[in-house]
């Protein structure tokens, strides 16, 4: 679904991405972890065609990402960006319905509204549709933004689509962070490729099929959570010591120490 090959990018002289390669198949949930400034968000922007790569290529469904028009790309990939500039006193439902732009007609149809309502429910915002977007709390806003991204892909994951999430759990309490990632995981189970930038290694190990660890513009480890989340790798990624615990379910719980 997504093939990133030898991707390089620089802001002026400063090299931010150095020959990054990454492959995500349909139905896979891949998390990207790394310290601040490791190049995660830049990688994201290049994958979304918001930035042009200096070298290498990004292929979506076997086609170069630059060959898609904005409208074509929006039909097969939805993005939850780090920040949302929307600052109008619109209802939450109207905000989520903006996600139907690429697929809907001039006026929202009944099925558009149904998709938006299903997306709100998946993001844990059932009953919020009439609330005013600007008056939501930070966490509620974040979930409304997630709902808009889900709505763009029709509220249901399917093969040939991709969901890109840049810190979907920012501003969210533990319960809602789980709810957001569960919604993304469900998309993956239904066939979409899901790529999420995360800061919480525990959440990443709970939900990801694969984890990519980034450091100084490079992916230096890529594989299953069990393979990637080692004390040594995390020390290299974050420059901090950590202990690894094996939970009863066989999952990893990681605490970073000073």
């Amino acid at each position, binding site marked *: 679904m997504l093939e990133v090959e030898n991707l390089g990018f620089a802001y002026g002289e400063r090299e931010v991405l150095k020959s990054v390669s990454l492959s995500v198949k349909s139905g896979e949930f891949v998390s990207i972890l790394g310290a601040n400034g490791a190049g995660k968000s830049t990688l994201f922007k290049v994958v*979304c065609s*918001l930035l042009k790569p200096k070298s290498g290529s990004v292929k979506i469904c076997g086609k170069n990402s630059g060959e898609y*028009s*904005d*409208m074509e*790309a*929006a*039909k097969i990939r*939805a*993005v939850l*960006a780090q920040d*949302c*500039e*929307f*600052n*109008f*006193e*619109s*209802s939450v439902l*109207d905000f989520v319905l*903006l*996600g139907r*732009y*690429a697929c809907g007609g*001039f*006026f929202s149809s009944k099925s558009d509204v149904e998709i938006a309502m299903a997306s709100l429910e998946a993001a844990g915002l059932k009953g919020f549709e009439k609330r005013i977007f600007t008056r939501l709390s930070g966490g509620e806003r974040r979930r409304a933004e997630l709902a*808009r991204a889900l709505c*763009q892909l029709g509220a249901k994951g399917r093969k040939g689509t991709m969901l890109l999430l840049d810190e979907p759990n920012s501003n969210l309490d533990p319960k809602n962070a789980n709810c957001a990632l569960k919604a993304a995981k469900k998309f993956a189970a239904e066939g979409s490729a899901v790529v999420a930038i995360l800061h919480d290694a525990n959440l990443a190990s709970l939900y990801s099929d694969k984890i990519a660890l980034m450091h100084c513009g490079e992916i230096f480890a890529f594989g299953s959570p069990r393979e990637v989340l080692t004390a040594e790798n995390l020390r290299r990624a974050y420059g901090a010591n950590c202990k690894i615990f094996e939970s009863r379910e066989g999952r990893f719980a990681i605490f970073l120490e000073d």
Partner: protein
Amino acid sequence: MRRFWIFFILSCAILLLLGAISLCAGSEDIPPSEVFGALFGGASDETSRDIILEIRLPRLAAGVFCGMMLAGAGVAMQTLFKNPLADPSITGVSSGAALGAAIAISAGAAFAFSVQISALFFGLAATFAIWRLGRINGRLSAFSMLLAGIAINAFCGAMVGFFMYSVREAGVKGFVFWTLGSLENCSWREIFCAAALGLPAWILLMANSRGLNMMMLGSDGARLAGANVNFLQKLSIFCAAVMTAAAVAMCGIIGFVGLVVPHICRMLTSPDNRFLLPLSSAFGAALVVFADIAARLYSPLDTIPIGVITAILGAPFFMYLLRRNGNA
């Protein structure tokens, strides 16, 4: 949706009522029965009929048209710049048009419509200059466009002052007309020309109002959701400039309508441009017609410029907006 229809029908009803008052009231009051007769070919006095069909009706049509255009352009600019304090003057078209008119008046306005054509040309040229200055690395930056707008507006204002000072007494009234606006002496020919220019731009904007909604997400957000941002930016600036230019070339600068009306309508319904544009246009038309009636009734013989009335109504509201935003 229901709120939209309630307020839209209400605005249209108010507009109809104000239209009727506008046709009846003035330096000479004409009873409604005679107005009806003049409009629909019934029995009416010859003089009354001339006053209604050649003076008051074109004046009403010009007011409705200007209100529609200015409020519509305001909707587009506030959405595009994601700023409720933006208005059509951001495009520089008003001050550019005033400068164009000033140059034509100073030069002696040699042929029919030369003042209007000059106003239109300079208005659109100012918009183009601001748009070019606002682009950085091929992307439109709202911030640099705002700064460019301040610079161009200041320059045009200074030049208008210069010409106004140069021609002294004779042309001063003409300048006042251009800088404060008036619906006086609008002929049917002028109105048709302005409408031929402004209405297609309004329709184009309406047809793209769904895309304009996407601009509320910011340019990156809109692109990621499938909107052609470059096209939408060009289209909304172009349409807003043409709509404002059509209104300004005919009636001079009528301030505050493009700022206040979209804001009120957004508070009444929603920021959805598919509904905001028609509602603001109806409301804007009603406001301009109301301001014109007020201007005429205050001094029947020598009408005060309509821009004075809209500013008196609009400025306190603007201050309220600033306070409200500051406290939010």
